[in-house]
């Protein structure tokens, strides 16, 4: 009996300690409210830890931005499981009276819609989904445009004409990124091929590094990635080859290898939404902005990137800015798949629907798309 009692005491002490730890952390997150007439409170629901470079990190930069610039009081919950805790966490923020709640992962879609029904006066913004409601808007960025530009850099810099791409899981978003990148490579270097390795992970540094090393072993001299960790960059740095980052500027992880990163700048969209909320003009929209609005872009180039390459990329970027090309560019025909079939004829533009459901590789990609898991 005595033993059981001791266990109980020990567990209680431990639990108290953990709770104290949590409380301390929460206290730190909530900053002092600023003296605005109408104080806006915004909450963010993240799927992963904020970390150092990935998807959630890029969103958190946006959160910090609106907090600083608009004096918005923000709170966030990280590492929230999709289809698990998500509904409870979102509901809790709604109950606490947050004016706008950002849910930043595709898998939060249904939970967001469900909670939004019960809180008609709260605004919900879901990132990357397609379901909307009167009080639920969606937002996303046309990352493939930046991917395309970064592919041009890779294509210009490769000497072996083998470019490695460490990819997470075969969903349309990732496939679209690979294809855009490959089209960028093709634009400047039709002989180069893109070798894709799927890791099945979003965030396992050891695995992702190993995947990058495998590609380097096979002769790839530029490594691109669609992962949350910077491990592929580090693999490139270790082996003395080049790399292209993703999400945020990853140069600090691979100062020599890193050429540029295709980066998110969510503060553009967050600022827009917050302004609408503050002015009381917010309405449910489906935002899918591109490089012209600055939601996506390239991080500063490494010194190793020669002037003519920079110029070429800049010219291509200008085409988006002055509307010379449609938003869907580079997905404009002629586009061939791996089997050599013509997917889009000369001059035809892929529709947004086709982009959002993309499930084939273009012809200069080596590798297969595993059967979709969902």
């Amino acid at each position: 009996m005595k033993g059981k009692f001791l266990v109980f005491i020990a567990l209680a002490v431990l639990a108290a300690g953990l709770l104290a730890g949590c409380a301390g952390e929460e206290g730190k997150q909530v900053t002092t409210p600023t003296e605005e007439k109408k104080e806006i409170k915004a909450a963010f629901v993240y799927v992963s830890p904020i970390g150092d470079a990935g998807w959630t990190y890029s969103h958190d930069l946006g959160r910090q931005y609106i907090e600083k610039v608009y004096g918005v009081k923000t709170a966030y919950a990280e590492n929230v499981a999709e289809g698990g805790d998500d509904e409870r966490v979102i509901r809790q923020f709604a109950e606490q009276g947050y004016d706008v709640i950002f849910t930043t992962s595709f898998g939060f879609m249904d939970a967001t819609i469900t909670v939004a029904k019960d809180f008609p006066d709260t605004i919900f913004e879901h990132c990357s989904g397609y379901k909307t409601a009167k009080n639920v808007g969606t937002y996303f960025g046309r990352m493939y445009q930046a991917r395309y530009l970064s592919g041009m850099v890779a294509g210009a810099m490769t000497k072996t004409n083998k470019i490695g791409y460490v990819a997470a899981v075969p969903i349309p978003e990732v496939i679209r990124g690979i294809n855009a990148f490959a089209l960028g490579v093709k634009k400047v270097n039709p002989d180069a091929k893109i070798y894709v390795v799927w890791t099945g992970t979003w965030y396992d540094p050891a695995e992702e590094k190993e995947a990058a090393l495998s590609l380097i072993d096979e002769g790839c001299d530029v490594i691109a990635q669609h992962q949350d960790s910077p491990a592929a960059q580090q693999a490139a740095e270790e082996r003395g080859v080049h790399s292209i980052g993703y999400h945020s500027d990853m140069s600090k992880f691979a100062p020599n290898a890193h050429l540029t990163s295709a980066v998110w700048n969510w503060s553009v969209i967050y600022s827009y939404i917050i302004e609408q909320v503050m002015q009381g003009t917010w309405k449910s929209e489906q935002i899918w902005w591109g490089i012209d609005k600055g939601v996506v872009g390239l991080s500063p180039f490494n010194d190793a990137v020669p002037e003519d390459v920079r110029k070429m990329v800049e010219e291509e970027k200008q085409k988006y800015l002055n509307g010379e090309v449609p938003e869907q560019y580079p997905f404009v025909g002629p586009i061939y798949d791996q089997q050599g079939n013509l997917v889009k004829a000369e001059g035809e533009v892929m529709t947004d629907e086709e982009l959002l459901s993309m499930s084939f590789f273009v012809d200069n990609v080596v590798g297969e798309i595993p059967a979709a898991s969902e």
Partner: protein
Amino acid sequence: MVDPGFLASLLASSIRAGTPLLYATLGEIITERSGVLNLGLEGIMITGAFTGFAVSLATGNPWLGVLCGGIAGMLLALVHAFFSITLKANQSITGLMLVLLGLGITGFLGRNYIGEVAFYLDPVKIPVLSDLPYIGEVLFSHDPMAYFAVILAAFLWFILFKTRYGLEIIAAGEKPEAADSMGVNVDRVRYFSTLFGGFLVGIGGAYLSLAYAKLWTEGMTAGRGWICLALVIFSGWMPQRAILGAYLFGGLDVLSFKLQATGVGVSYHLMKMVPYVVTIVVLLFSVIRKRAAFGAPAALGIPYVRGKKE
């Protein structure tokens, strides 16, 4: 048919990927052999990974990092030992608690260490031997900890099966009441084995952050602790078999990348399943054959209370 260069780089990667698994598996084998089931490997490994990284960053000495990673693992194991040996609590529950505790604490404390660059263990090319074609790359181009893991496995095999200490550990795990009547202090043996096991698991974690991935991120063990629990079963609680198992499990992981990189289409879903399928097959085999060589220690997970039959 198979390109020797491909094979060599696959085997070299298998050893790299398998070494952290090997340390943790050896640790858990010693723990389980004494009758204590510690399901907290994932939590202990991540604690070792974080502590090792933080100490290496602070002191500039990765070896000190490895040592402290081990000590941190030992401290968590001490918690487990206290609950499961002294208090006779349910071992599964305290083990699982360690997982949550380790992941939580390192996530909290490790926040400011993300993105830092510490001091790492680098591969040492053994002169002459590392220049041998292929073999040099596979066997003689690793960091010292990778070599030491194999020596450790051999050493533990010797201790377990050829010495009196080993006999006591095995007795405590198989028939604690018999061991007790022979004058073995079962609780002490179990304490020692659990602490030593935790030390090795912590080192496995430190290896992950200081030699394999060479960075610290939250949750970076990514399930390796659970893989090691399967590896213990795969090894049939034998240190020498753990070498093969760890390299095999590590290699299967890498093989999928290597094949994809050469343009061969394989499903990573299936590849990730293989270690577990193999473990299930080994388990089935052990049940069907009822061979002691594959079986779990008889008193595994059962608290020993003197004079009381379960």
